[in-house]
């Protein structure tokens, strides 16, 4: 019988080594893996939503600071020019445009406040879902025949619902409620 060559020996050795490192069985832990994947997705989405919430809070704070600057300028202008009535204030271009911008900024601040609340609730729900999946995973590791279809479906539904808001904060300007300058003047006083 012909002796195997060096190449044949090397190939044989390599195949044996490769087979030893391959996963033993993927199907045996399919359920656990599926649950882990879902948990990873939940965790990722949770972190994204938390980041969006932080972004919204930062933007809102910046807008609030800008709003205060405008208020200060409007008050100073009205005091310097002795303007106390809304009619006269609205005839002053600086005060008028300050009030208009203040109204828009206030509308955005309100919307960012809503968004912050929305993201907070989303993070809470995702945390709860993650916790539920983790509990089920412990059971899957210990027991057999665990049904996780309902949980997976629920998780996918929630993930799909939040996915659109995970990448960026969505605000549609035409949906904002912007006050009239007259109301802003009254609020200023």
């Amino acid at each position, binding site marked *: 019988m012909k002796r195997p060559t060096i190449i044949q020996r090397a190939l044989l050795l390599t195949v044996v*080594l490769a087979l030893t490192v391959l996963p033993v069985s993927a199907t045996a832990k399919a359920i656990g893996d599926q649950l882990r994947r879902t948990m990873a997705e939940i965790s*990722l989405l949770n972190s994204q939503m938390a980041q969006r919430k932080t972004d919204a809070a930062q933007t809102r704070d910046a807008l609030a600071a800008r709003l205060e600057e405008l208020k200060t300028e409007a008050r100073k202008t009205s005091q310097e020019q002795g303007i106390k009535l809304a009619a006269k204030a609205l005839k002053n271009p600086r005060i008028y445009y300050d009030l208009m*911008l203040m109204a828009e900024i206030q509308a955005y601040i309100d919307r960012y406040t809503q968004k912050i609340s929305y993201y907070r609730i989303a993070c809470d729900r995702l945390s709860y879902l993650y916790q539920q999946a983790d509990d089920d995973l412990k059971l899957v590791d210990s027991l057999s025949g665990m049904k996780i279809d309902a949980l997976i479906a629920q998780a996918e539904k929630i993930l799909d619902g939040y996915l659109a808001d995970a990448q960026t904060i969505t*605000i549609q300007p035409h949906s904002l409620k912007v006050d009239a300058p007259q109301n802003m003047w009254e609020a200023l006083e």
Partner: protein
Amino acid sequence: MKGKTKESDSENRIIDTDQSPTHAEPVIHAAARMETTTTANDDESLDAEQQKAFESIMAQIEGGGADADTEAPSDDFSAELEMVVNEAAAAEAGGPMDETGNESDQGLDADQQKAFENIMTQIEGGGADADTEPPSDDFSAELEMVVNEAAAAEAGGPMDGTGNESDQGLDADQQKAFESIMAQIGAKAPEKPSSEISESDSTAVGANEQENHPTDVIRDQSVAEAEAQDVSDDINLILDAITSSNEPVSVSATDADFPSPPSALQSGEPATSEENPSPGYPTLPSTADVNSGPTAIKNVRPEAETVEKATTSVGGTRKKAFIALAVAIGLLALAGYVQWRLKNDVISKAPLSTADMPRPDGVAAIPPPAQPNGPITVDLPPSDHAQLKTAAEKLHRLRGTLLEKQTEIQALRAYYQAGIDAEIAGIVEILHKTSPSEVAFGAAMDHPLISLGLSAIQRRDNYITKLANPLNDLLWSSESLLFYARKSEMLALMVGKTSDLDIDGFLKQVDEISAMHGRVLAQLDIDAVPSSPLELESIWQQIVKRLQEPPHRGGKALPVRSAEDVAIWKNICAGDFSQKHNLTELSPEAAGCLAQWKGKDLFLNALTQLPADAARQLAAWEGDWLGLNGLKELSADAAMQLSRWKGKKLSLNGLSRLSPRVVAILSEWQGDQIELVNVKQMAHWENPNTRLFLSEDLHRGQNTTRK
């Protein structure tokens, strides 16, 4: 193996590509080698025949060498030939060559002799042309003829009775060698690259080697039958030498019998000398030098093939080992990578520990998948952000242009107003100098200076009125642009982390607004503004009204209207300065008392008028900061008195307008700073040592004017 190596070495050393110019030399060496070989093989009868052939060859060479057209061989070569002959003679004397000499002339020797004669004929014929003509097909044809003759001799039946076994063996070998030669010639082996030869030699198995490469026949026989090396090999060598006779080749039998010329050794030894046991010979620089010509390739081939084969076999083994090692390493790396990926997947999919679980209160207990935070976070879309910033800058620039135009128009209005004041002052001066009868409008119009003055006032007032409209337009336009610029900055603040903002729509709106206000700026015109100039008589009535008022410039104290002010004056003069900031009017006496105030700051912001006499008294105060922010007007006389004050800071923020004369007077003040933040128009400030605090718009306008 050892014998083969030794033979290879000896054969390697016989190669000469450059130093042996004649084609006769290989024949001589081959013949000599043949003789020594046969002597060593105890075949006396053959030795005798060979000796005879050798002598014949030598005779031919000696005869032909003189006739050859080629360059005369060197003296060394002749000496070498003589040496070879002498050695052959010595060998002949040592054995019974003469006894078998006659027998050797018959039978097989005759064929050989015939072949040799043909060869010699070739040598003689080719000697003259050897240097000028390369080996041609004619020569091959002649070789073929020699082969045919040898075959014919062999076909005549077995050798005669004088032939022995060795004789029969010689024929077979010879025939075999000739067939190999013919196969080589037919296959044009010399044209084959040496590398291919080596490869074919190393890979070919069996009889194909003999058919394709006669040199392999020699090599195989020398390996397998080292001790039975016979004459056929020598003939082979001779024929090989003949076939390559276009270039001289030096052939030597063994190191001991035929010391090769040093030149041949230096140039003909292959570089692969690691198996060369003889350290006495220098090695070649490289094999490529040996293979520099076709003849060299042909002659080197047996030796080179041996070495190449050995090298190839060693190199091939190493190559295989390297390939196998590389493949094994690659597969192991692949397996490791697969394992690493699987491990990472498992880690990433592993559940978080309970300690890492998010807390119900949410924010701080979010599980830390830190990796996706960076790349997934949507960075600022530079296009939108940059566009908004650019739009804001564009709006600010346009607003700056509008403000410049606004300042320019305000300066015009102030100029016209100052002209009106000057005209009125001139008219009043004229009226004071003339009789009261001229107070009537008709009489006043008869006075040319008064009538012209009234017309100038009317015209300038009309200009001021007309300029109000474009000024107002510019004000609203500039404020509108400021609004959009601020909005653009606000959107730039949000656009990085917020989507669905209608940036494109806003930018389009900005463009429209910019274009509209740009048109407004280009279409500033007062001709189209409807205006109704004041009647001259109305102007005259205003002047008369002012004429009837007591003059302020005379320094007379204003009448005290407030009992409260009187009470404060008394207190001040009594040393109580606590109510000084409530003063609305100031008498010169009260001002003199107030000048005794030892504080550093004196703020009289409730004062609305400051007579010159009071100002003169007040200028004696030795404090640092005097605040008169309630003053709406400041006469030149009062300004003159204030300019003599020795303090550091003067606040006149209630003034909205200053005549050029008052500005010139205040410029002479030597304090550190003066505040005029509400002044809308002002002439050039001449005093660089005093810091001037103006409104933002006026300050910008003054800077623009300076540029």
